[in-house]
């Protein structure tokens, strides 16, 4: 029986001949079938994955060919894979097939990864519960009455419930870290520009970043190493050389300087037990002679409004291309003229949350409101960036909860603003473009997992992954 722990162990097993890529693919496709009710996948590329696995097994000659040789990967359905459908979990992309590979996918394939299927998510990555998919909600495998988080809910559950080895999501305001938190897996959002966005369906361009779900830091680091780096197709991506993240992982006994925000931990929305457990954990850090200091963060109350002003503005424009003219859904039945066609197409095929954000975005960009909303929000964003830079002069990492609560029940948040406010701890990293990771260190007495969120300065993924490795090992050892 196939059993997965880490990519390294899997590669060793391949070398020992105790397993094959075909075994792995068979295991995962069966696992997906067995757990179809979780609704984590919109499509499984079973035959293709098997054929690819067979080819990898045959060509191997007793060695491992690529860094991700035979690694079974699932893609959030906002990442383009040539010749395959991509829908952003929206009806507006009805029957749309991508004619090119996202840069990240190109890099995965070049290192021998096997793409097993596309994951359900919130429509256009807009949501915190995966309830906004046009193809139904995803269920949390830890408790099927609970949401898996969003927007990359399907990708989180795919790793949580053993339906792939690693998965790619996208994180615009917490869409990788929060579902990782709700599902008890590792979720990394690299710094903005670390991974090319080419082929990632845009929600809010200056916030979007592909993120990685995995069972452990080694796998996440290795996957990051493969998909990160300069790309001539994305002018916003970092041109810095990509560190060998997987090689640089050390469990050395370095003393770090942590800080946490007073306003974050005193926030009324934060679940008391989450707060307590994290505070206890911080005590173990000081016991281990790391420094942990409390700092004031006066701007906390502004970050959710600023985030929603800026992301909806960008989204309203990014989603204009879905107009029924060139691809995807088009209403022809009762459209008398062009204007009707636009209105009917977009009204029918976009979901409620997407329409809400398009309307909000158009509002904040419109003449007469632009300065009061968009310009002001940009100023606050710049202020946040400056303050954060200063903070990292004194500290290595910021500690935050990932979410104020553990996974909630379906339909729990009826008020959209209430749902927005639950993003309070995750949107910060996207606003300032820094890397952040959600580490599944805790279990709530309600039996749901929850995470510690660590944030590092821009370009500090190496130290972020190292300390994460350290903390997860300590937990295992305890």
């Amino acid at each position, binding site marked *: 029986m196939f059993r997965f722990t880490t990519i390294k162990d899997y590669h060793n097993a391949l070398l020992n001949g105790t397993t094959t890529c075909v075994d792995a693919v068979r295991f995962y496709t069966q696992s997906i079938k067995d757990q179809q009710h979780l609704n984590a996948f919109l499509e499984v590329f079973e035959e293709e994955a098997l054929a690819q696995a067979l080819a990898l097994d045959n060509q191997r000659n007793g060695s491992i060919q690529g860094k991700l040789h035979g690694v079974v990967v699932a893609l959030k359905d906002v990442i383009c894979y040539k010749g395959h459908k*991509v829908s952003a979990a929206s009806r507006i992309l009805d029957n749309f097939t991508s004619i090119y590979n996202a840069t990240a996918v190109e890099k995965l394939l070049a290192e021998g990864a096997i793409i097993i299927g596309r994951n359900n998510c919130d429509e256009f990555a807009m949501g915190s519960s995966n309830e906004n998919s046009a193809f139904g909600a995803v269920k949390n495998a830890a408790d099927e009455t609970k949401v898996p988080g969003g927007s990359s809910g399907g990708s989180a559950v795919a790793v949580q419930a053993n339906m792939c080895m690693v998965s790619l999501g996208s994180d615009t305001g917490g869409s990788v870290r929060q579902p990782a938190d709700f599902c008890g897996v590792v979720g990394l959002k690299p710094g903005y520009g670390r991974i090319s966005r080419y082929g*990632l369906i*845009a929600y809010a361009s200056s916030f979007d970043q592909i993120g990685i779900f995995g069972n452990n830091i080694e796998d996440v680091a290795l996957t990051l190493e493969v998909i990160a780096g300069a790309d001539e197709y994305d002018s916003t991506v970092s041109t810095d050389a990509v560190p060998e993240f997987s090689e640089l992982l050390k469990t050395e006994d370095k003393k770090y300087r942590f800080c946490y925000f007073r306003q974050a931990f005193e926030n009324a929305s934060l679940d008391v037990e989450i707060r307590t457990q994290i505070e206890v954990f911080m005590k173990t850090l000081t016991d281990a002679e790391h420094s942990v200091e409390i700092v004031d963060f006066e701007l906390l109350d502004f970050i959710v409004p600023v985030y929603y002003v800026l992301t909806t503005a*960008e989204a309203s424009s990014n989603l204009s*291309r879905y107009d029924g003219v060139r691809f995807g859904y088009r209403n022809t039945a009762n459209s008398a003229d062009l204007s009707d066609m636009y209105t009917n197409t977009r009204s029918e095929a976009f979901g409620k949350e997407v329409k809400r954000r398009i309307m909000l975005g*158009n509002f904040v*960009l419109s003449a007469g409101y632009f300065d009061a909303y968009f310009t002001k929000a940009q100023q606050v964003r710049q202020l946040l960036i400056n303050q954060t830079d200063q903070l990292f002069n004194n500290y290595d990492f910021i500690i935050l909860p990932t979410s104020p609560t553990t996974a909630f029940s379906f339909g729990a948040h009826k008020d959209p603003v209430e749902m927005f406010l639950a993003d309070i701890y995750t949107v910060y990293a996207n606003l300032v473009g820094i890397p952040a990771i959600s580490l599944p260190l805790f279990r709530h007495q309600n039996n749901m997992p929850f995470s510690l969120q660590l944030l590092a300065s821009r370009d500090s993924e190496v130290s972020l992954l190292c300390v994460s490795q350290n903390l997860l090992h300590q937990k295992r050892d305890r």
Partner: protein
Amino acid sequence: MNSNLEFEAVIGLEIHVQLSTESKLFCGDRTLFGEPANTQVSSISLAHPGTLPRTNNKAVELAVRMGLACHSSISEKNFFARKNYFYPDLPKGYQVSQHTIPICNGGTVRIMVNGIEKEVILNRIHLEEDAGKSIHDVDETFSLIDLNRAGTALIEIVTEPCIHTSEEACAYVTTVRKLVRWLNVSDGDMEKGNLRCDANISVRRKGEKQLGTKVEVKNLNSIRNLRKAIDFEISRMSSMLENDEKIIQQTRSFDAVTDTTFALRDKEEANDYRYFPDPDIAPFVLSGKYINDISISMPELPEQLQSRLQQDHGLSLYDAHQITEDKDIARFFLDVNDIVSNPKSVANWINGPVKQQLNDRGCSIEDLKLSPSDLAALILLVEDGKVSFSSASSQVLPKVINSGNPPIEIIQQYDLLKVSDEAELINWINIALNKMPEKVIEYRKGKRGLIGLFVGEVKKLSKGKADPKLVNEILERKLNE
């Protein structure tokens, strides 16, 4: 009542120039003209989900070139903005353009109107991408969309409202067209749509300080149409003002069949474009060194060359302006003059017979089979009295061009050497005079102007070879005997 005396027009022009880059502004798709519809479109031009723009450095360089040539100041920090509106030939649902900060600020363009030089003041030059084309007249039911042009690099050159007549406007557009060609910034071909013009026109009573309500006339795709549209608008708005009618702010279009304009939409219906900085394109910085390097690589500008031709070569403003209308002609002039060292004569040859040949053949100096050395040889033959100007320009020049043979060979082959031999000239003169004895009598009675007729006849008989100066002398002598 002559309304031109009472009213004054204030005009600002926006010229869209398609840059001569091989690929589009934000992707590698080609920019060839006249290709089959939708063959120059990749997933990026089609705005497929997940695609991103990347800036064409050549387009940035060409915009800077144009800015430097127009004495604009070049922005150090640049970014693109999105102009949001829905139209089927706009694949992304927004046009990537520049908004608050253009790549080139201000500037001037020197023009010549009725022999007088003027300066047109620029507001800005900015970079943007073109839309595709909507075709409404091919299919009965559907509008067709061709996205070959979508994403092509443009610069938009915007003047201040400082133009007052259609002559000035046409001179300005002609000058801009010359400049973009001179700098290899664009083909500047209005017929192919790679230079397009919109005019903002208002009219006010003379002496008034405040601008009148403006109308914008779109898609003026030739110099002729620009002139007709402006003249029509000035007279339309002047008579409205005369009749105390209220002018409304409108976007209008020119109808080249009737030479009139018609309203497309009122200002109230205008879009709110919701401009904001494009987050998909990293801002770019143009360093002093970058700008300086471009500046150094630029050719001598037409206005600089014009001044040099006036000062160093003693050409008149008119001749110097004519010679600098086209870079290749200017180059040709300089090459010929290097050999001939007679600027006035070379300018006369080029502005006269050579341009005549270009017009007749509908080609450019580059395509004309005439080397500077051949023209120089021909001019020198005329100066040396070997061939008459009239034979040289009307016979030798076209034959040189047609055959590619040197002028002296043509002259020999066709026996066009100027005849100065008195006996031969007298022979032709006698034949001529014998042909029209009445005229000779009239001349002798005092109608001295008839001498031209006799000279002309001799020229004809000699097929242009007769030395006109000698013919004149001999004729006068003979007739006054």
